[in-house]
């Protein structure tokens, strides 16, 4: 601590245990590009001006705590038990940990998922391709991570589905994930894929991540040991959000 005036200013905003005062900044080439011509919808929906560098202030290193408001019921993380009957499809369990890039688990953080049904159809008015809806499947789930940063879902394996990006375009099977983390800058929306999907080479969304190892970080692994006999196959997927970085706000100004 230095002189009293500085101490007073910091007393308000200087954290508190275990909260970083700045977060890692991935370089532009380490992130999924905003402009990726093979994905046609990106053409009119990416900024053309360069992004302006922003030193992280208190607003970026804090973030909302939505958990208790969004996860209301015990079955929020079981997508197979939200209706009177069971959905059609292959029942799976999906578990993993939410960690930062230092390997530190994020406890009590909200994980939101949404997905197509086993036939590859979303319960959404814009999804009109001729695959059946399942009256027993909505396709949305929510979970809060435990003390080890672990989340867990029971669902059915979604099917691949066609889309209009190019001739005979099909999306590999995937589950959408949304994470808030603890800080505004940790926000992540992504898609989790299943191992060995034969559609990978043809999908511009998957391949918008140019680095092969980075793409593999979006692919879950099959876990025989976690599979439940006579009940469900298991997949595991860990999610890494941005961790502590190197340049606190005042030094960056």
């Amino acid at each position, binding site marked *: 601590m230095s002189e009293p005036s*500085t101490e007073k*200013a910091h007393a*308000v*905003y200087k*954290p508190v245990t275990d909260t970083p005062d700045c977060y*890692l*900044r991935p370089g532009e080439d380490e*992130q*999924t*590009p905003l402009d990726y011509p093979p*994905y046609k*919808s*990106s*053409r*009119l*929906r*990416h*900024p*053309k*001006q360069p992004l*302006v*560098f*922003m030193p992280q*202030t*208190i*607003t970026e290193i*804090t973030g*909302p*705590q939505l958990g208790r*408001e*969004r996860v209301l019921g015990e079955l929020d993380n079981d997508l197979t038990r939200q209706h009177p009957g069971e959905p059609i499809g292959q029942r799976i369990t999906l578990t993993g940990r939410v*960690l930062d*890039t*230092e390997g530190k688990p994020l406890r009590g953080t909200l994980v*939101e998922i*949404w997905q*197509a049904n086993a036939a590859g159809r979303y319960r*959404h008015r*814009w*999804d009109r391709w001729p695959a059946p809806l399942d009256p027993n499947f909505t*396709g949305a*789930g929510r979970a809060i991570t435990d003390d080890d940063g672990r989340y867990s879902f029971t669902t059915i394996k979604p099917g691949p589905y066609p889309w209009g990006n190019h001739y005979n375009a099909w999306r590999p099977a*995937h589950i*959408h994930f*949304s994470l808030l983390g603890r800080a*505004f800058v940790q*926000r992540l*929306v*992504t*898609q989790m894929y299943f191992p060995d999907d034969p559609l990978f080479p043809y999908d511009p*969304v*998957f391949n*918008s*991540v140019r680095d092969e190892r980075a793409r593999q*970080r*979006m692919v879950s692994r099959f876990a025989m040991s976690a599979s439940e006999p006579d009940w469900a196959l298991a997949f595991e997927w860990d*999610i*890494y*959000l941005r961790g502590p970085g190197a340049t606190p706000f005042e030094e960056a*100004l």
Partner: protein
Amino acid sequence: MIYATTPSQTVGPYFAIGLPWPEGPHAIAPEHPDAIRITGTAYDGAGDPIADTLLEIWGADPDGRYADLWEHGGPATPGFRGFARFGEEGGDGRFELITLKPGPVRVSEGIVLAPHLDVTLFARGMLRHVVTRIYFGDEAQANAADPILARVPAERRETLIAQPTENGYRFDIHVQGPAETVFFAV
């Protein structure tokens, strides 16, 4: 850094199945006496409204306090979530969020952040989200001293200033085009 981050992927066209909820757009109850409405439209590079946007805001309360895990600045206004999420598909692209107007935030000796909200925008066609900030048109003096606005080329600052309306502020977002909004690398 030991591990690399999980890459981002687009929110896609069907996020309404999982992400919006009825109270989501309200960072504070709409009947709160100090509630303000922030309305606007996000436009694409052809000047057309983006009808499937997911927009989130995060910011301090009128006293500069954050409703985060550590309650930075002390406990925030009761009932204030600090965060709001608007997600609609198939509308006219117009969004509406209800919150409290944030106060200035003193981060250290001589550095005061002008009232602002952080904004995260997702949409089909965006492989990762973009980040911008809302500043307020009736805070010219504070805006002039804000260290983040100072980094924005003067001729583009106007894209970050929400204009007062009858019951709040209007803030349009242009993802691309001649009036392209400033987006930040954070």
